[in-house]
């Protein structure tokens, strides 16, 4: 048995609305989108215009700053709109499904028998390359790099996160083929990290060509950043790549069948969902068939992803490129009389300053209210309780705020990503926007280093 790494510092937020372990086929969505905003450091250059006919795998746009990788359409149909935000920044490219399911042909191949360059070429062309991202900076990997290792977290520990063992059921061959392809990309190890708390799926445990590691403990034990930090921390100048399991399956399909098939399973979760279940759908699909008539009333927040790191969308929004979870929670846009002084039987807090600790097994319906005003740092030692890396989180954040590049480097900025700080942001008494500060720091470092 492989070594088990125990994560002690962390937190599992007891949210209501976990998805029942049943996979249902979702009603087909009419619209699908690829969102450049799902990626960091993008300058989007469109390759199609509204009205163009596309197939699954037809390129829609590329990144001017890193032109090799193409971003392709998840379904066949017609490009119906390009939605732009401030300063005409492209937010989403929307394709209407023509229900014909036509695929571009990239040709099947056995990755074990072809050259590294050809594996890369196929991934770049098909639009599957962007599923491979790198640390530091959490940007799409550079195909010219050779990473020291590739990390795959085969479990998700985020609040209400989907169960990957359920999701990958029956995809053993595709998963293995995907691993074979990744194997070509690195000279180092492929770390496949599993949860030691329950027996994982055979798709993972019987995978060949990987180093299996076990983790146990609360969130963020499933974050790839934490796993890298514990197993093989990143030093200055080193690059590690990481991929999510469902994307490896898509890579497998590419080599097995020669097509860009990004059908995937997403979990519909959250306290406001009537029947939280798993749904089989396609990457980038509109969530409207999933949430229609399936949510409770009131003002709701729809999130692509989990409550800590997900993206806010509306009830017709699209599933994010890397997301396999939709969360629906109540909005918190109300006033509460003397809320800070009440006993708070229904309020969740890590500190035991609300009476809710009387009921430790309770699952909470937490809304999006900020629950206080932003302040300077007063409390200390809070972040350390939920931050399992060997890094001083508050000091790193302060280094970012004063934009001290050298200090950021010394304090370990290469090893972190915004998502690793999500719990810090959640528990912060001073309501500091920690994740956006970390992102600013990463962007700054990247600018300085390039």
């Amino acid at each position, binding site marked *: 048995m492989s070594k088990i790494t125990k994560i002690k510092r962390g937190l599992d937020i007891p949210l209501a609305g976990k998805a029942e372990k049943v996979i249902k086929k979702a009603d087909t969505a009419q619209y699908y989108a690829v969102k450049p905003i799902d990626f960091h450091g993008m300058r989007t250059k469109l390759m199609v215009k509204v009205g163009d006919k596309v197939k699954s795998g037809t390129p829609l746009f590329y990144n001017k700053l890193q032109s090799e990788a193409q971003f392709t359409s998840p379904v066949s149909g017609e490009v119906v709109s390009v939605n732009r935000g401030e300063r005409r920044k492209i937010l989403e490219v929307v394709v209407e499904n023509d229900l014909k399911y036509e695929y571009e042909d990239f040709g099947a191949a056995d990755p074990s028998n072809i050259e590294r360059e050809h594996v890369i070429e196929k991934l770049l062309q098909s639009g599957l390359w962007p599923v491979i991202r790198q640390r530091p900076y959490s940007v799409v990997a550079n195909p010219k790099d050779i990473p020291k290792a590739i990390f795959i977290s085969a479990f998700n520990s985020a609040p209400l996160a989907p169960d990957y063992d359920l999701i990958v059921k029956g995809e053993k061959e595709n998963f293995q083929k995907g691993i074979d392809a990744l194997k070509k990309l690195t000279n180092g190890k492929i770390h496949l990290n599993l949860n030691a708390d329950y027996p994982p799926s055979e798709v993972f445990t019987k995978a060949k060509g990987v180093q299996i590691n076990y983790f146990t403990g609360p969130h963020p034990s499933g974050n790839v950043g934490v796993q890298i930090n514990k197993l093989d921390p990143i030093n200055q100048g080193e690059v590690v790549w990481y991929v999510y399991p469902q994307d490896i399956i898509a890579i497998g399909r590419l080599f097995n069948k020669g097509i860009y098939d990004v059908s995937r399973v997403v979990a519909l979760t959250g306290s406001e969902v009537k029947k939280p279940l798993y749904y089989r759908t396609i990457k980038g699909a509109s969530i409207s068939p999933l949430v229609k008539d399936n949510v409770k009333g009131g003002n709701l927040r729809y999130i692509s992803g989990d409550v800590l790191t997900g993206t*806010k969308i509306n009830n017709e929004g699209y599933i994010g490129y890397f997301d396999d979870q939709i*969360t629906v929670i109540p909005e918190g846009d109300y006033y509460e009389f003397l809320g*800070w002084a009440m006993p708070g039987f229904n309020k969740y807090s890590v500190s035991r300053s609300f009476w809710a600790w009387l009921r430790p097994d309770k699952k909470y319906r937490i809304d999006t*209210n900020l629950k*206080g005003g932003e302040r300077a740092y007063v409390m200390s030692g809070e972040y350390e309780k939920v931050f399992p890396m060997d890094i*001083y989180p508050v000091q790193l954040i302060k280094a970012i705020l004063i934009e001290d590049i050298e200090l950021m480097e*010394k304090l370990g900025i290469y090893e972190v990503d915004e998502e690793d700080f999500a719990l810090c942001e959640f528990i912060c008494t001073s309501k500091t926007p920690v994740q*956006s500060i970390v992102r600013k720091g990463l962007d700054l470092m990247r600018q300085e280093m390039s």
Partner: protein
Amino acid sequence: MSGLRGYIDKIKPHFEKGGKFEKLQSTFEAFETLLFVPNKVTTQGTHIRDAMDMKRTMIIVVIALVPTILFGMWNAGYQHHLAVNPEEPLTILQSFWIGFKLVFPIIVVSYVTGLAIEFLFAQIRGHEVNEGFLVSGMLIPLVLPVDVPLWMVVVATAFAVIIGKEVFGGTGMNILNPALTARAFLFFAYPAYMSGNEVWIHGLMKGEGVVDGFSGATPLAQAAEGNVEAMPSVQDAFLGFIPGSIGETSTLAVLIGAAILLYTGVGSWRILFSTIAGGLVMGFIFNAFAVNEFMSIPAWQHLFLGGFAFGAVFMATDPVSAAQTRKGKYIYGFLIGLLAILIRVVNPAYPEGVMLAILLMNVFAPLIDHYVIEGNIKKRMKRAKVKAA
């Protein structure tokens, strides 16, 4: 509550940009958020937040202080009565009432002065009003003698808030604990009112009707003079039936507060326990060399005397002025305990060393953190070098 909410919503535009009272926006906001948790929702980062905020944090500390406040009021009356008329026993309520009349004005004056300055600064800077003074405003009266003139409370509070806190940028940025800054200011500026045998009990300074042979000295002052026999029993010291600053005498009341702070997670157990450990270690060292009677007081009894318990629980654990790293907290607390007992026993000029020990370590806390973090940086650099080699 919808009526009140409606009224606030009605007058709110006047305080917003372009309104009649736009200059009072921070003040309005402070009162509005005091009454209602605002309707702001998360816009970036995590979509949900922990229910804990700064107001809650501060109110928990104030709740933890309540036992010491109540006991302090009672004890002020009780000590006064002992001094002037011990023959005729008073009920608990009578003692409390005497003390209440003495202590309550000090609390009001401290809050009014401090909050006025806080509001003013928030207004000038265009910030929201910080909640930090809710705690400082309560701590200041508790570390003062009961007969302190009210104008001194005003001066000391103003000094603490302006020089101790606002010049550094407000709550969260200060280097020294504001409440101790206030006390230290009075201690050095008006020593006659802050030390000696007369100041701790109401009426003694004016010499009114004190019974013969009554000294009014605190146990530590007695001990410093070599009168170890005159020390109160351990039980009296623990329960707090002794002269001293308003809030510091009862170790039991302080312990109730400590339990609240530790259980809710607002106070740092690392600092608290290492402070106690530091105090005990120094006490044991003195016991081992006991060349005079003061040194031979059992180490654990030191914890019940003077302001040690109060300082360790409510002052040393102030997260802003303490060390911030885990390792740093152990070192910081331990040195506070060590220095407090060292100053207390060895330095005849200061019969109590807790205040100075904490202020000194406040100054050193950033240095301690610096070396702890430097250790982490070195480890990372070493790892990178090993890899590169």
